[in-house]
């Protein structure tokens, strides 16, 4: 075996290992999410039957919550990876550039209109995230923004959408409690009426995205080279941003504004798998799902019987990570052209 084929074999082995570990990570995290909680239940009690208290806790509390956390993590990690590739900026997570807060505004408006679940909520969340992404994309294309400016404009949009959400809650005080939990990001109130539509939307987006992985790779070669390879870059950019908005919207409709997942997971996965979307996207989906599910379990057991929203844990993990990226990352990753 020559050095080239040996190196190729080692790379393939590494990727296979990453997939295997990712699958085990999701399964273990979900199992922990179901088995562990503020109410202590034995394994026998968990499967006592659906009429028992423990059975109801399993079916109506822990199962939707665990599935919700996996879907939310998967969607946010994927959305982050796509946005970072399309905008060519590694700091452009959905929670940083206003995608999540755009969806958040839409959810606040829908709550004010009396919509608390179902497909209408998912669609409205998507619409909010989509408007935010397209506004940013329009600015990037129209004014030929550098990488640094993209993030700054995104941060400004984020503030704008948060302010508009506050306007809605001020005008409709009855929804304040909902939007309070919602802003932090928590999975306590996950119901099937929220979970099923959001999961359907997220899975459809995931499947479409997986068929477009190589297109995303071509786009990351830069505008001119992608066009030189025959790609209609404007159309592809819009498709990718719409898919990332669908994913972010579905995550927000389940758990609210959970931050930093779209930043932490893609960066960590990139370090080991490389930047090509072919493996990056499925691995982000796996590790994102497992990560949020694990953090949610931690949020339930760390200060049991008290529960802290998963968004707080994410913020404690995400802020140092974000600063570390700024300090240690290559300048070209997020600034200049």
């Amino acid at each position, binding site marked *: 075996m020559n050095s080239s084929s040996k190196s190729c074999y080692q790379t393939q082995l590494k990727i296979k290992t990453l997939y295997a570990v990712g699958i085990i990570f999701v399964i273990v995290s979900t199992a922990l999410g179901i088995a562990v909680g503020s109410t202590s239940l034995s394994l026998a009690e968990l499967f006592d039957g659906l009429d028992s208290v423990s059975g109801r806790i399993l079916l109506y509390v822990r199962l939707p919550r665990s599935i919700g956390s996996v879907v939310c993590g998967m969607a946010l990690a994927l959305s982050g990876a796509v946005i970072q590739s399309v905008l060519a900026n590694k700091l452009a997570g959905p929670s940083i550039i206003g995608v999540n807060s755009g969806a958040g505004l839409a959810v606040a408006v829908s709550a004010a209109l009396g919509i608390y679940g179902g497909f209408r909520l998912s669609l409205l969340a998507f619409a909010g995230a989509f408007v935010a992404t397209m506004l940013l994309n329009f600015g990037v294309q129209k004014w030929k923004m550098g990488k640094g400016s993209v993030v700054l404009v995104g941060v400004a949009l984020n503030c704008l959408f948060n302010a508009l959400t506050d306007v809605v809650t001020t005008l409709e005080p009855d929804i304040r409690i909902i939007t309070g939990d919602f802003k932090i990001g928590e999975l306590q109130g996950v119901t099937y009426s929220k979970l099923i539509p959001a999961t359907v939307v997220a899975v459809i987006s995931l499947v479409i995205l997986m068929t477009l992985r190589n297109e995303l790779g071509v786009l990351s070669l830069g505008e001119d080279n992608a066009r*030189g390879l025959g790609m209609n870059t404007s159309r592809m950019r819009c498709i990718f941003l719409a898919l990332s908005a669908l994913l972010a919207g579905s995550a927000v409709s389940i758990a609210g504004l959970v931050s930093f997942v779209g930043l932490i997971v893609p960066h960590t996965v990139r370090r080991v798998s490389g*930047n090509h979307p072919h493996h990056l996207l499925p691995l982000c989906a796996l590790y994102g799902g497992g990560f949020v599910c694990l953090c949610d379990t931690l949020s339930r057991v760390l200060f049991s019987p008290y529960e802290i929203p998963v968004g707080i844990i994410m913020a404690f993990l995400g802020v140092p990570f974000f600063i570390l990226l700024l300090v240690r990352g290559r300048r070209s990753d997020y600034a200049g052209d």
Partner: protein
Amino acid sequence: MLEIKGLCSGYGKKQVLKSVSLTLEKGRLISVIGPNGSGKSTLLKTLVGINRVFSGEIAVDGIPLSSLSSRERARKISYLSQGMTIPDMTVEEVVLQGRFPHLSYPCVYTEKDKELSIEAMKRVGILPFAQNRLSSLSGGMRQSVFIAMALAQNTDYILLDEPLTYLDVSHQAELMRLLKELAADGRCVVTVTHDLPLAFNFSDSVAVMSNGSVLLHSTPCDACKNGCIDTLFGVQLLNTEYGYILNNMK
């Protein structure tokens, strides 16, 4: 043959190229030279559909370029832009993307695509680095990777916008030798460059541009005798027994 007749083009509404006519033949290495802002990059970008054609005609092997879809065009002409983005990918992954124009949705690279990209990497001597990250390679090696990507694209026309930028003297000469070999294989290789001695020493023909027009397209020997180099660049290009050298001690 790539035929350009009376081409006017530019960015947005701003016209840069003014009635450019040029014939680019297969089997030749053609250097496009000219002062900054003369329209060299605009010409290449127009040939691959990045810039809009205001008027004029471009025909590739007798087929009007406007009648081809962007993928059909990319199956005939490959293009490497100035100052390529360095994606954080392996060499193999980058080269394989050259096969993109040959695929339709869903874009899945086949074994044949992988074989062709391996051949392209062999051709430019980067196969041993196939699993290396692009960011870990030197500037010269990176250029070779992008040229391998263009080779994997398997086109008759290869357009390169300032491929010699950031390369040291030995890598510049090495790259020009490679481009010469690719032209000798029967391809038409067009390179935009500011390095006059390299352009004149290695190219089969030189197209001199100024202010959006092609002043001259001829063999290096005729272009050197013409005197337009002195006028445009304010330097003297001498044809010596060691090749073309610059005399800028005016």
